[in-house]
């Protein structure tokens, strides 16, 4: 029941997000507006308890959700074939640059152990 309520909250906030995004022509996509709204709503215990139940499940299986889009690669095989090597070089090198810059920068900015940071409240995030 809680998970059902949580899923309903997610969908309601996503819908409000879509309406605001389109209505006010915000630069943020609907689900992102929903994320920001949920961030505020989580301070309210009834929302928090029900959303926690479904969020941990959804985020724990996040990689599954990319499979349908991923299979779409087959539709673009001609394009990937035509520019294959160049596209591969762009995707691989830019991903490495992004990973390296982020990791090294954060390591330099926060040299302390996260355990010395204020601990996360409630349970330990998506498992």
């Amino acid at each position, binding site marked *: 029941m809680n998970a059902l309520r949580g899923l309903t909250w997610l969908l309601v906030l996503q819908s409000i*997000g879509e309406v605001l995004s389109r209505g006010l022509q915000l630069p943020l996509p609907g689900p992102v507006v929903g994320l920001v709204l949920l961030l505020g709503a989580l301070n309210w215990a009834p929302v928090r308890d029900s959303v926690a139940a479904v*969020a941990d499940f959804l985020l724990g299986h996040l990689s599954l959700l990319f499979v349908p889009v991923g299979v779409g690669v087959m539709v673009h095989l001609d394009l990937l074939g035509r520019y294959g090597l160049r596209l591969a070089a762009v995707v691989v090198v*830019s991903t490495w640059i992004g990973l390296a810059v982020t990791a090294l920068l954060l390591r330099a900015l926060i040299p302390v152990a996260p355990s010395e940071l204020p601990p*996360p409240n409630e349970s330990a995030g998506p498992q």
Partner: protein
Amino acid sequence: MNEFVQLWVYLSSTPLFGLTATLVVYLLAQALYVRAGQAAWANPVLWSVVALAAGLTATGTAYPTYFSGAQFIHFLLGPAVVALAWPLWQRRAALRAHGGRFVIAGLVGGTAAAASAVALAWALGLPTEVMLSLAPKSVTAPVAMGVAEKIGGVPALAAVFAVLTGMVGALSGKYLFDALGIGTDAPGWMARGFALGTAAHGIGAARALQVHPDAGAWAALALGLQVVMAAVLIPLVAGWF
């Protein structure tokens, strides 16, 4: 034999087929991944995509037919993006204490990924629409599609590049971090997780989550930050050109 063909034609044309095939193949890939000791090469998204694409090609099933069923899984990406508020909220104390540093690392790292992708695509002479579809590739697929649409890229291509980027990050992240001398102590896991969430979105975060719970939590935080920042900044920057 003929009856079998008819049965197959019927089954493969209902949404039931795409949905069931996706779940079954993914669970098999997940089992293989666990059997392989969660080795990076055994990434379940990669092998699910390869197996499903090969299966569809071999049986002559069109992607839209498959997607009519798989869309029920695809749809959950929207609520999943909203749900990212949960790990962000859980880490609000750390965010409040070190928020500026996380934002700087996410901003600089995300910019480095997007800018290097566009610059490389331009240098290698890729068409403009491909180049614009590459810009949001570090952001999770549904947001990447929205951003690509706003800046004149091709949403479907942006989704493909986002998935490929996530796989590259999930497959090679470990070796890159080892080579860079990023440890596996607590700050090391934070840097590894946060970097995977920033540059390799949900697929990178899923990998981080499987390797170490702390890395996964920081990856989810990075993913949430990246989604908000990229959705605002990429169209803004693209508007200057």
